């Protein structure tokens, strides 16, 4: 009987934060995207902002760019993380220090990673100087544009740099907790290297791979600071486009900014829910 009151009381502080600030923020964004802005005397509700956004050609270009950035970053970092985690699982000299370095950039803020990528990959950056010293280029313009570039490679480098370690640390933790017994069993049954990886390790790692890569995808799709620092001005990543509309001096641009950020949130939510359902289905069919 006492628990009946105790649990809601225990949950109250966290729920207040989530419901008031998170759900409340989303609801206000939705209201404003519908044009409801009492602060400037607008009370009528309409889908005009969404229509306007969907008519903008730069919206589709930004959407495509953002999907490209998030997709490539997630795919590349997942594969690299798998490789690194498998390499770090084996016993070798210097493994402790290698593992420490591998964890090193996980808590580093993205802004710093972006500055590092800028100093490294810009056309007068560290790598361009190395290329000059090696006789590969003669002037900065000869060096391929890797930041502020149309393919957003600089942004992808930064995301891959951080996310590989993030996913890798999680996969390594799973691998170490599994131990070698499953593989030993497979080996005594005559499974080769590839078979042990494909039919023993990979299925065991799959939940970890799916849950960490979905976090990376959601983050890279909705993140703002790295594209702001390393992206070209046009087309820009979708969150940057939304932010620019938000800070536009013309207050009429605000509903459009809200509509764009609601669309971003919606796309991510739909993708994540679909992905989770597929993952659960795949895990279920894998077990049977």
């Amino acid at each position, binding site marked *: 009987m006492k*628990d009946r009151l105790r*649990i809601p009381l*225990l*949950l109250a*502080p*966290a729920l207040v*934060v*989530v419901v008031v*600030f998170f*759900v*409340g*923020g*989303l*609801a206000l*964004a939705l*209201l404003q995207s519908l044009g409801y*802005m009492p*602060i400037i005397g607008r009370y009528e509700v309409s889908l005009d902002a969404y229509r306007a956004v969907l008519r903008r050609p730069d919206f589709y270009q930004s959407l495509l760019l953002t999907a490209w950035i998030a997709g490539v970053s997630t795919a590349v970092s997942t594969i690299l993380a798998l490789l690194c985690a498998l*390499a770090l699982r084996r016993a070798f000299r210097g493994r402790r220090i*290698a593992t*420490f*370095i591998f*964890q*090193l950039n*996980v*808590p580093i*803020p*993205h*802004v*710093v*990673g972006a*500055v*590092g990528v800028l*100093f*490294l990959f810009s056309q007068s950056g560290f790598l361009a100087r*190395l290329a000059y010293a090696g006789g590969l280029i003669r002037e900065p313009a000869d060096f391929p544009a890797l930041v502020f570039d149309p393919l957003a490679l600089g942004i992808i480098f930064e995301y891959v*740099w951080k996310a*590989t*370690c*993030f996913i890798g640390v*999680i996969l390594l*933790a*799973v691998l*170490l*907790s599994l131990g070698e017994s499953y593989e030993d069993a497979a080996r005594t049954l005559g499974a080769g290297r590839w078979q042990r990886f494909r039919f023993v390790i990979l299925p065991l790692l799959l939940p970890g791979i799916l849950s960490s890569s979905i*976090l990376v995808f*959601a*983050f890279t799709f*909705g993140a*703002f*600071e790295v594209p*702001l*620092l390393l992206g070209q001005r046009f087309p820009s990543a979708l969150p940057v486009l939304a*932010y620019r509309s938000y800070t536009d001096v013309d207050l009429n641009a605000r509903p459009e*900014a*809200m509509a764009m*950020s609601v669309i*971003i949130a919606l796309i*991510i939510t739909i993708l*994540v829910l679909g992905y989770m359902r597929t993952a659960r289905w795949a895990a279920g069919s894998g077990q049977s």
Partner: protein
Amino acid sequence: MDQEELDRAAGCRHWLVVGGMVTAVLLPFIPLIIWSFARRWFFPALWPTEWSGRAWSYVFSPGSQVLPALLNSVLVATAVTLLSIPIGLTAGRAIGLYRFRGRTLVQFLILAPTIVPALAVAMGIHVAFIRYGLADTRLGVILVHLVPVTPYMVLIMSSVFANYNPDFEAQARSLGARPWQVFRFVLLPAIWPGLVVGSLFAFIISWSQYLLTLLIGGGQVVTLPILLFSFANSGDNPITAALSMVFIAPALLFLLLSSRYLQGRSAAIGGFGKL
């Protein structure tokens, strides 16, 4: 190929992966460190032609913008951490210890901010913060930082409480312990490692926030990342580099402090996804 050759090839591949990985992780830090001590370093020089401690003396000079920004960052992150501790303790206890109706829904709700980007939330709530005088204030920034911090604090604390046995509390009570004694001598020692890791997380997540501070702080609450961004855009490489080094200091400290708790604690490591 005989077995020995195969083994050697596998060993080479292994070192290639490990070596490449270590290089790739460390590479972006190299120009950062060098730039922070450079005065003149034009293309194509591989090494600065003139060195200088200007950036570092600017960072630590009392008249610079750095110290107030550092103070703001420390104040905000500390307040967010202190606020998130009771939030995480209570919700973590409820989710970790009890099975109740709607538990899945509550978990889903609390974890939602890890997936839905902060942009929509911050833009939406900005109006309300302006209305209640919270925009452009430190308090407003602290409150809005609770959104990304809360899920991870609750996640970590509920995994701690899942392995906690509340019967010890009943035993202590039956021996005459007062509520605060139960808290101090039974609960706190049991959850201490998780609480430390969770607090470090909360601090680092708040410390790294840029967008939320920019929108809600409105340029009035200048924290380190806000300052770092403006220097990065102004193209002053030495100061940008030195500031970056200051900015990552707590992260490195965090890694040293928590590395012994972090191994195998994948739920906790999940918190890094938001940094």
